[in-house]
């Protein structure tokens, strides 16, 4: 018998699991329309691979992973793409997200499914295969699984923890999956084991699920693998990754470290199941088990196509008339769905129909009395009351000092608070505020460096141009006195008006005045050189030219207005 450890804190809310456990998993009927968001996992946003009007097959990839931490999305059934556009997302914000809308043709035509023998694949190919099959953590965090399937280089992988705890009230999707499809789960776990090569595989299931425990034990025995199936005490949040690791291995994952650094990795049972389906049957993740429970006539677990609109899904359970909202996820960590058009996604493990009777409106928030109940309940040994004060005062630096980002938003603190303070909401607010500031800061820094670079470049270009012009002028100046021809004076004197427009044009936005100043200096320099020791012949010629210039003032004005004041008078 495995020695179990305890995690600190936690609560024991009423489970409400029985109603949805009465019936086995059923296949949800094909909806009229499927809205498949492209971004269904942590990481990059897959780019759409299909166009409006295109016919797609069931399981066809419609969005390809665009980076390592990202996962592909697939058409849940065969049909026609009727739109690729932003649609309401299954997200508390009520914002839209790029989605592919498919009108099913009802034929359920599969792509050519290619089972793979994973033993023959190189580990990298296997991870790519899982990524392209869209395998992500189905416990609710939707982190791409392939990215978790490499052991840390420095620490040997000791334990692989499989999470079947399902600690959230109301939720029963993992329970039924373990009861009905234990063998496929265990086969999926063997794939993970072969990739990570841990010394032990520990499957943790809360002790309020004896049927699931039984079924998993039988499957392990039948397949002859040495996995340990262990009942863990029922206490919320035993299904949190760090909590389950603590209970099963006694290892405490330090703040801002990841479990592989401690030689542990954790996967959900449903993730193992989908990984096995992807490898042994060539079926990408296009459906999941969703619990429909709460204020409905027939609570049950449904194997539902991803992209099924909430409105069509809830009809399966016949919600009671006083239902006023739908929660996605459990009552502790879930959120209210923004509308009935929002689709079910890979993260949708449970839909709870809520009513004022089931979830009475929260009592008014009272001042914190510093009782410390939240600190006792916190499974991460944080001090929620401190975090609350600092979040409330928008003192975000302090919240980070108190390890705000270790908070898993499990809701234990809000659950026990005698003053009914919605602590988790304050923490979520503080977290997103900090992220936003970080984004702004990074953008400002990038803008600053670009601005500085641009200024530097401008300066350099200006200097280079001035140097070039000076060199040209110097070359000209040395050329002319050397020529020493009587005619040379004429072009020399006419150079300034000819040079000025060149300067002004080239410098454009740069100070015209500076150009004029330069032109004047050049002219003066030229004059000084050429008016010394003039012969009478030259003097006569200059007089003739001046007379000619005086005769045509209008012509000169036209030539020079856009450049500089006519230099004729100065000469």
């Amino acid at each position, binding site marked *: 018998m495995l020695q179990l450890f305890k995690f600190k804190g936690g609560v024991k809310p009423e489970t409400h699991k029985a109603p949805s456990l009465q019936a086995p998993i059923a296949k949800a009927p094909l909806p009229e329309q499927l809205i498949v968001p492209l971004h269904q996992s942590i990481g990059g946003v897959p780019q759409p691979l299909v166009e409006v009007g295109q016919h797609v097959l069931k399981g066809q990839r419609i969005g390809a992973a665009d980076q390592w931490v990202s996962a592909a999305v697939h058409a849940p059934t065969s049909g026609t793409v009727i739109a690729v556009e932003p649609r309401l997302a299954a997200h508390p914000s009520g*914002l839209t997200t790029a989605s592919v809308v498919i009108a099913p043709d009802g034929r359920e035509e599969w792509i050519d499914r290619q089972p793979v023998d994973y033993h023959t694949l190189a580990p990298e190919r296997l991870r790519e295969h899982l990524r392209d099959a869209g395998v992500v953590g189905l416990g609710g965090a939707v982190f791409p699984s392939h990215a978790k399937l490499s052991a840390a280089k420095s620490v040997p992988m000791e334990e692989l923890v499989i999470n079947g705890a399902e600690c959230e009230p109301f939720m029963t999707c993992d329970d039924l999956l373990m009861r009905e499809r234990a063998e496929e789960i265990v086969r999926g776990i063997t794939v993970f084991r072969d990739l990570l090569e841990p010394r032990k595989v520990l499957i943790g299931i809360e002790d309020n699920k004896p049927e699931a425990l039984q079924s998993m034990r039988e499957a392990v025995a039948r397949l002859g693998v040495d996995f340990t199936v262990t009942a863990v005490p029922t206490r919320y949040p035993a299904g949190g990754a760090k909590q389950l690791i603590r209970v099963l291995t006694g290892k405490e994952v330090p703040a801002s470290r990841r479990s592989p650094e401690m030689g542990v990795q954790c996967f959900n049972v449903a993730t193992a199941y989908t990984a096995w389906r992807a490898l042994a049957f060539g079926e990408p993740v296009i459906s999941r088990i969703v619990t429909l429970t709460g204020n409905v006539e027939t609570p049950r677990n449904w194997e539902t196509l991803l992209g099924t609109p909430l409105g069509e899904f809830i009809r399966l359970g016949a919600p009671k008339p006083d239902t006023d909202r739908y929660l996605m996820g459990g009552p502790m960590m879930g959120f209210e769905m923004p509308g009935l058009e929002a689709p079910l996604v890979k993260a949708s493990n449970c839909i709870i129909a809520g009513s004022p009777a089931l979830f009475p409106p929260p009592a008014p928030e009272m001042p914190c009395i510093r009782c410390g109940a939240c600190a006792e309940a916190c499974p991460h040994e944080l001090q929620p009351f401190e975090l609350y004060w600092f979040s409330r005062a928008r003192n975000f630096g302090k919240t980070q000092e108190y390890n705000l980002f270790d908070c898993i938003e499990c809701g234990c603190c809000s659950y026990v608070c005698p003053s009914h303070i919605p602590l988790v909401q304050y923490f*979520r607010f503080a*977290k997103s*505020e900090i992220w*936003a500031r970080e984004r*702004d800061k990074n*953008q400002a820094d990038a*803008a600053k460096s670009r*601005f500085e670079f641009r200024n530097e470049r401008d300066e350099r270009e200006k200097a280079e141009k001035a140097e070039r012009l000076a060199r040209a002028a110097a070359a000209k100046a040395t050329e002319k006195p050397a020529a020493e021809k009587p005619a040379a004076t004429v072009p020399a004197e006419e150079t300034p008006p000819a040079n000025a427009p060149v300067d002004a044009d080239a410098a454009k936005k740069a100070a015209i005045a500076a150009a004029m100043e330069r032109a004047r200096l050049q002219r003066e320099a030229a004059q000084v050189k050429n008016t010394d020791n003039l012969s009478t012949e030259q003097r006569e010629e200059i007089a003739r030219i001046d007379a000619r210039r005086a005769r045509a003032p209008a012509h000169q004005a036209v030539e020079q207005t856009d450049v500089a004041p006519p230099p004729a008078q100065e000469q």
Partner: protein
Amino acid sequence: MLTAILIMALGAVVLGAALGFASIKFKTEGNPLVEKIEAILPQTQCGQCGFAGCKPYAEAIAAGEADINRCPPGGQEGVAKLADLLGREITPLDAEEKPKQLAIIDEHTCIGCTLCIQACPVDAIVGAAKQMHTVVSALCTGCELCVKPCPVECIRMEVIGESLETWKWRYPIFEIKRAS
């Protein structure tokens, strides 16, 4: 007596040398206050404060020549941060607070004059003479400096809405029920 004077003199020489060495060794380039102020400014380089960029404005604030409420992109929050840093009074922003914007070039109207490219302080516009220009939206700071120089008025500013990536949880607010 003489010993005491010698000891004091020796002490003065040693300490003076140490201080002299430290002033060379640990010399700070530039004004550290300017850097702190600049870190608060949003770096849009828009010039709406009347200075040619964020750094000149920061220098003016540090020199006490400019008010702290002249940066519209920083908003009232920026004013509060500057007031906090400088120990000055929080004053209302001397302009309308605008949401974050993004410049968009109507590529059908653009004649390729490159004037906006020259006006952009952060090199966020790409294009060449007589070629269509476009704004690299990830780099645009929304400073509006490109709008005026455009001879065909093909640049417009669009408010950047919230997306799933930038959405923020709201500050928890609860309605107080009227006591009947």
